[in-house]
């Protein structure tokens, strides 16, 4: 067991235990912090697999932007008191059983697969930003542009949904909006 394998098992342990912490912690703020820990562990896996650009993007986008948004919403709603009503024991039991059954089915399907491929740990150029940028702006330039339209529509949609419905436009609609 060399250095890379020790790092692999350590990062896997951190990722799985943080994932379990997200599911089982009572306080939503603790769940967010566990999820940030899981993102850092997954970024460590990316670095082990020579995907440095994705590791940096994962930290910036997920741990930096998305999780801050989650924390912001949780603190805006003052949800950090654990006043969440729990599901009944039967539903929790059924959830754990069905998740475990899915896990076993996937494990049994993968276990006998003929692929015993393994990759070497030689540093490769495929994960570097030069190679990724060339691929992104030649082969995948159309999905890139479409994703910008997706972002624009998501921005407009979030603003339209999050806006308070207090402005009534015309007096005819005022009776409808004035709930």
């Amino acid at each position, binding site marked *: 067991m060399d250095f890379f394998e020790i790092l692999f098992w350590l990062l896997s342990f951190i990722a799985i235990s943080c994932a379990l912490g997200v599911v089982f912690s009572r306080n939503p703020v603790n769940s967010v912090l566990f999820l940030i820990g899981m993102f850092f562990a997954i970024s460590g*896996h990316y670095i082990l697999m020579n995907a440095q650009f994705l590791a940096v993007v994962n930290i910036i986008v997920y741990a930096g932007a998305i999780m801050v948004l989650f924390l912001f919403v949780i603190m805006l709603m003052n949800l950090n008191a654990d006043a969440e009503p729990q599901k009944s024991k039967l539903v929790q039991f059924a959830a754990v059983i069905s998740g475990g059954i899915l896990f076993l089915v996937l494990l049994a399907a993968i276990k006998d697969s003929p692929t015993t491929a393994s990759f070497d740990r030689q540093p490769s150029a495929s*994960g570097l930003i030069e190679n990724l940028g060339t691929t992104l702006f030649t082969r995948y330039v159309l999905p890139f542009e479409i994703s910008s339209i997706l972002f624009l529509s998501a921005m407009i949609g979030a603003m339209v949904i999050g806006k308070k419905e207090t402005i009534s436009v015309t007096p005819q609609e005022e009776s409808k909006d004035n709930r």
Partner: protein
Amino acid sequence: MPIQYYIFLSITLFCIGIMGTLMRRNAIIIFMCIEMMLNAVNLLLVAFSKLFEDASSQIFVFFIMVVAAAEVAVGLAIIVMMYRKVHSVDINILNRLKH
């Protein structure tokens, strides 16, 4: 490093995400579990990218991150609006959408 290790790790993270989605009633935690499942898929895509020395699947990971960011923005706006209406993030209140 055998590719099977990464497959098993991704399956484990994905199943934990599914378990959390089915088990919790807080809408925000359900969202976080969905993010966890997306990350499991991302990890598997990067592992196969490393196996085949191909940059395309890393581009797919990039697009998954883009779509996840857009989804979180809209979804959290919906959750904030729901909280403003009913003062709760319990998803069982959304049962009334059936009627």
